């Protein structure tokens, strides 16, 4: 199974940001999206995740095979680390909460409420959530924000293990993740020409 994207045009607020985006992401591979702020990395990831429709183009893989992790981690402040993970595991019909906590070095924090975690610990919990989704394609939006170098290494190891299991990862990131095998896709090349569609009205976009 692979994620093949062909001639994808995605829009933010009705205005096309990226057009002609084409790439394939085979199982076992990682791809890093790069580009300046506002070039459409998040928009592309949200489109692939099925959260917003594409204006044109095709995505070969259904949203059901994709796990999306955005800027927000989707944690509940008054639930503990273990409860947060157990909830997402139950929603996806998976187990493996213990293993996920171990992989992201959260076992010692398992009984602590998410509101008492530091920003980096929350991020680690948000990334551990991916491991209990049981989905093959991970879409990660700035996964290393607020992580220290040790945690970035931990995260790289988790991604590598996921790739080794036949998964794939698509990451938008500005920093070096330590994943040397990852290919890089420059999104600036796909920037859409500034134009407004006929009869465009922002209010109905």
């Amino acid at each position: 199974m692979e994620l093949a994207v062909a001639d994808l045009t995605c829009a933010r607020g009705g205005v096309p940001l990226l057009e002609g985006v084409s790439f394939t992401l085979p199982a076992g591979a990682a791809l890093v999206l790069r580009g300046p702020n506002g070039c459409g990395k998040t928009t592309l990831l949200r489109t692939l995740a099925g959260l917003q429709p594409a204006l044109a183009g095709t995505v070969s893989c259904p949203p059901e095979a994709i796990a999306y992790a955005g800027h927000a981690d989707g944690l509940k402040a008054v639930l503990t680390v273990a409860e947060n993970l157990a909830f997402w595991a139950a929603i996806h019909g998976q187990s493996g909460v213990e293993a996920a906590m171990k992989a992201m070095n959260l076992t010692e924090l398992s009984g602590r409420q998410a509101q008492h975690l530091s920003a980096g610990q929350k991020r680690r919990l948000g990334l551990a959530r991916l491991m209990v989704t049981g989905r093959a394609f991970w879409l990660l939006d700035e996964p290393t924000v607020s992580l220290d170098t040790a945690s970035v290494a931990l995260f790289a190891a988790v991604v590598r293990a996921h790739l080794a299991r036949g998964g794939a990862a698509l990451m938008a990131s500005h920093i070096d993740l330590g994943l040397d095998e990852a290919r890089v896709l420059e999104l600036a090349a796909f920037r859409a020409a500034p134009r407004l569609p006929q009869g465009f009205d922002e209010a109905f976009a």
Partner: protein
Amino acid sequence: MIALLTRDLRLAFRAGGGFGLGLGFFLILAVLVPLGVGPEPRTLGLIAPGILWVGALLACLLSLDRIFALDFEDGSLDLLATAPIPLEGVVAVKALAHWLTTGLPLVLVAPLLGVLLNLAPGAYGWLVLSLLLGTPALSVIGAFGAALTVGLKRGGLLLSLLVLPLYIPTLVYGAEVVIRGAAGLGVTTPLLLLAGITAGSAALLPFAAALALRVNLR
């Protein structure tokens, strides 16, 4: 689905979950009305059905914006929308959780507050029954309103304005059941209409709300 329900219930009962919000409001209203209107038992008995129903409705309204706004803010809603359970199911489960934490406590405490308001003895059963049939509609309609306004900052006012007109039929028939029950008249017609509103909104509005959520998440 069950996991989502237990999570929402757990969140409501933990600190800051807003479980007591509607209940507290309902209590305050029922205690203050006799003080404001005066202790004349006949007057109180006359207005009791309407006051109890209006109180229950406003108490429901108080906690509506929490249904989706909190999940939207922390990103859970994005993740739920991409999760393997259908968004329509998410809406239905969240409306059910709202009813269990807001509507059901109101139903249980209403007879007690009926005493404070000198409700006619024959009307207690009808009060509980009408609230039991009517409050689920309040939660489902409210979930629809909350889905429409989920991305808006300070959407509470707009939510109230959108939802209140939709609440009117439930209020009219619900209070009518209690008024007719108190007077010893037949209640079948308003009771059936009330049940119809609840059944209809529970069947249709989760789909409309899921559609609104998808648009708002873009």
